[in-house]
C-alpha cells in the first residue's frame, strides 16, 4: 500500500499521521520549526512563503485552541485564512463532507486543515483532492493529531537535545488519546531508548506493550528517574461508561503532584497538551511550577505548524520532473 502522505519523490504531500513518516521527514519538520521560532521573536513576525495562498480551516468538531494556532501559523506565513466551523453550517443542512470540500476548492483553497470527530476524516479528504492541494490532519477521532505529537517532540528536543539518553513517561488516558500512539512511534523513531506508559488498566489500549513501551500501573514506580513527563488530558467528553471511580480518586492515584514529580530526575520537564484539568490529572503547583514547559509547548506549536505548512506548500507536484530553477511557465 502506498503512503498517501508522501508523493512519488518521497516528499511530504499531506500530513495525516506521524506513523509512516520516515525519520528524515520528522527531522526536516523539527529543524524547519527551529528556524520559525526565531521569526516569532522579530519585529515583523511574518515571512512571505504562502503569499497568495488560501488556507482553509475545516473544523467539523470544535477546538478553539487548535484552530487559533493554525490560524496564527498560516497568517505568519502570509497566507489568507478562512476558518469554517462546519458543524454549525453546511453539515447541518445536509451537505456531505466532499461537497463542502469541492465548493472550497472551487473558491481556490490551496490547503485544508481538517478536524473531525471521526477517525480517518482527513485521509478521506486527502484521497479526494487534486494534486496541488494539501491536507493537514488537526485531529481525527481517537486516531491521530500529528502536529500535537510533533510539537511535543520539538519541545522535548529543545530542552533535552540528547534524545538517545532519555527516559520518557506518558501518563494518563492513553486509550482515548489522539497523540499517545503517534508520540510513542515518533519517540522511538528518533532514537529515544525508553518510553513508559503509566495508566490504570482501563485507560490503556489492548496490547499496548506491542508498541515497544514499558507499562506501569503504579505512577511512583513509573516516574522513577525519568527525564520527561508527558501528561495526557483526562478525556471526560470521550469517556462513556464507568472506567474510573471519580475525578478525585483519579487525582489521588494518577494526578501529578510535586511529591510524585520529585521521584523523576531533578531536572525533568513536564508537558501537557492542554486544555488542562487542574486538580484531576495535574496539580496547579506542578502546572505552574519551574519544571513545567506547558506554555512553551503552545509557542512551539505555532512554529511546528508553520514548518508543516511551509514544507507542504512549496514545490510543484512531482509531475514536473527534472525541474530547473526557471519554473515551467505554465
Amino acid at each position, binding site marked *: 500500500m502506498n503512503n498517501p502522505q508522501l508523493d512519488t519523490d518521497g*516528499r511530504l504531500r499531506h500530513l495525516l499521521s506521524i506513523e509512516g513518516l520516515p525519520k528524515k521527514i520528522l527531522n526536516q519538520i523539527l529543524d524547519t520549526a527551529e528556524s520559525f521560532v*526565531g521569526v516569532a521573536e522579530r*519585529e515583523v513576525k511574518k*515571512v512571505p512563503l504562502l503569499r497568495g495562498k488560501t488556507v482553509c480551516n475545516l473544523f467539523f468538531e470544535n477546538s478553539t485552541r487548535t484552530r487559533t494556532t493554525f490560524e496564527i501559523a498560516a497568517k505568519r506565513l502570509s497566507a489568507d485564512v478562512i476558518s469554517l466551523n462546519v458543524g454549525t453550517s453546511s453539515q447541518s443542512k445536509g451537505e456531505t463532507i466532499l461537497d463542502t470540500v469541492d465548493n472550497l476548492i472551487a473558491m481556490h483553497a490551496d490547503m485544508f486543515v481538517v478536524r473531525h470527530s471521526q477517525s480517518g476524516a482527513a485521509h478521506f479528504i486527502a484521497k479526494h483532492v487534486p494534486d496541488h492541494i494539501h491536507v493537514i490532519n488537526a485531529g481525527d477521532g481517537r486516531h491521530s493529531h500529528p502536529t500535537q505529537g510533533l510539537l511535543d517532540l520539538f519541545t522535548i528536543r529543545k530542552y533535552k537535545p540528547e534524545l538517545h539518553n532519555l527516559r520518557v513517561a506518558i501518563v494518563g488516558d492513553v486509550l482515548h488519546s489522539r497523540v499517545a500512539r503517534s508520540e510513542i512511534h515518533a519517540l522511538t523513531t528518533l532514537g529515544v531508548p525508553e518510553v513508559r506508559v503509566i495508566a490504570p488498566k482501563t485507560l490503556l489500549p489492548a496490547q499496548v506493550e506491542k508498541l515497544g513501551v514499558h507499562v506501569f500501573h503504579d505512577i511512583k514506580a513509573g516516574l522513577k528517574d525519568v527525564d520527561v513527563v508527558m501528561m495526557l488530558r483526562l478525556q471526560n467528553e470521550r469517556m462513556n461508561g464507568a472506567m474510573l471511580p471519580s475525578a478525585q480518586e483519579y487525582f489521588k492515584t494518577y494526578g501529578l503532584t510535586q511529591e510524585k514529580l520529585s521521584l523523576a530526575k531533578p531536572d525533568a520537564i513536564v508537558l501537557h497538551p492542554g486544555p488542562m484539568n487542574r486538580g484531576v490529572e495535574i496539580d496547579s503547583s506542578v502546572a505552574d511550577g519551574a519544571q513545567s514547559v506547558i506554555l512553551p509547548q503552545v509557542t512551539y506549536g505555532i512554529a511546528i505548524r508553520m514548518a508543516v505548512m511551509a514544507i507542504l506548500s*512549496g514545490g*510543484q507536484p512531482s509531475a514536473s520532473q527534472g525541474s530547473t530553477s526557471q519554473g515551467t511557465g505554465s
Partner: protein
Amino acid sequence: MNTPTHIPNAEVLLKTLAEKLEPLLRENTALVGIHSGGVWLMQKLLDLLAPTIAEKGIEHGTLDVSFYRDDYAQRGLKSENRPSQIPFEVHNKHIILIDDVFYTGRTTRAAMNELFDYGRPASITLVALINRGGRELPIAPQIVAADIPLDATQNLQLVQNADNSLSLQLINNKAQT
C-alpha cells in the same frame, strides 16, 4: 570538455577581500553572513580583522534566506535550513552583507527582504568573494575579491574543508535544458 579557467585559491582571495573590507568598518556597522558560504567567510573575516572589529564594536549575525527565496513555489523548502540569527538592532545600522559567489542577485534580494523584517537599516553594502557574472536583477556587489565570468552551465561553489580551510570548486553541468 570545457576545462575550467584558472580557479583561484579561496584563502588568498579572502585576504584581498579583508583588505578591501577594512575601510568600510566604521562605528554602527554590522556584518551579516548569508548561509552557508557567506557565514564561513564572515567567520574568517572576523578573525582576520579582529583588531578593527573590536575597536569599532562591529557586531555580526547570520541569515538563512530560505523563507524569502523567489523559487519556493517551484522548488519548495530545502530539507536543511538554519535559523537566522541577528542578535543586534537592525534599525539605523550600516549592514554589510557577505556572500560567497555573486550570481543572479536573487539571494541578495531575499536577504534584503529578510533584513527589513528586522528593522530599517541605515544602509546595506554587499560584499562577495567572487562575482561570476549573470545577474538578473539590478543588484551588484560593491566589493569583490575577483571577477570570474562563467557560463550558465557552470557552477562555482565555496567549500569548507575538514581542516576548516575554504576552497573553490567548479562544476560543469552539461545537460541543462
